[in-house]
């Protein structure tokens, strides 16, 4: 199981702020994104950065059992 967190526009588009899912063949951030995009229209997801366990990672990063993956749309704090 991994936990996936959604924020801002993505959260609003999906109507949920997080979900838990089984890895089942998903090994990298890229594969997780593709999986989600298969099921949802989420143009902002492509522009988003990704964090695993609160650290930014690239699309090549491996996801491990128990990880918390967060999609970080372009930030606008400050």
């Amino acid at each position, binding site marked *: 199981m991994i936990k996936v*967190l959604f*924020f*801002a*526009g993505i*959260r*609003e588009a999906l109507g949920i702020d997080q979900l838990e899912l089984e890895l089942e063949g998903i090994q990298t*951030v890229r594969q997780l994104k593709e999986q989600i995009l298969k099921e949802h229209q989420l143009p902002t997801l492509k*522009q*988003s*950065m*990704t*964090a695993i366990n*609160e650290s*930014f*990672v*690239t*699309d*090549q990063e491996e996801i491990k059992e128990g990880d918390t993956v*967060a999609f*970080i*749309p*372009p*930030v*606008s*704090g*400050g």
Partner: protein
Amino acid sequence: MEHKLFEIVDQPINIEELRHKVERREAGAITTFVGTVREFTGEKKTLYLEYQAYQSMAEKMLEQIGHEIKKKWPEAQVAITHRVGRLEIMDAAVVIAVSAPHRKTAYEANEYAIERIKEIVPIWKKEFWDDGTQWIGNQLETINYPEGKPIEKGEF
């Protein structure tokens, strides 16, 4: 530590308190930056804003900015608080306080902090106008994240 130097809060920010966090006998200069909700952006009139954060990571990223500053300006002491939730016009969204023995450092480190906040801290702003709402994307518009990863500064 008596108080948190890097914080996300959902209540009005106490600016005085931020300054007190960095005050010390070695300091000859203290700068504060207050980012406030502006009514107009061009012709567009903002009614109010909503900020959302990935709180635990946002505080971690603020701390990272603190480390970056310590490395670039070892004599600087910095504290940052960002507010989330609904904010009205003129409310303070972010406050940065920096103390340093000399003024140049206090200005430079402070400006560095706000620039980095706009790059790496997972906080998002939603604008509410008369005729709609919108989540605001990267306001810098100049940044290119190869492979979705922000540019690293220093070794962090």
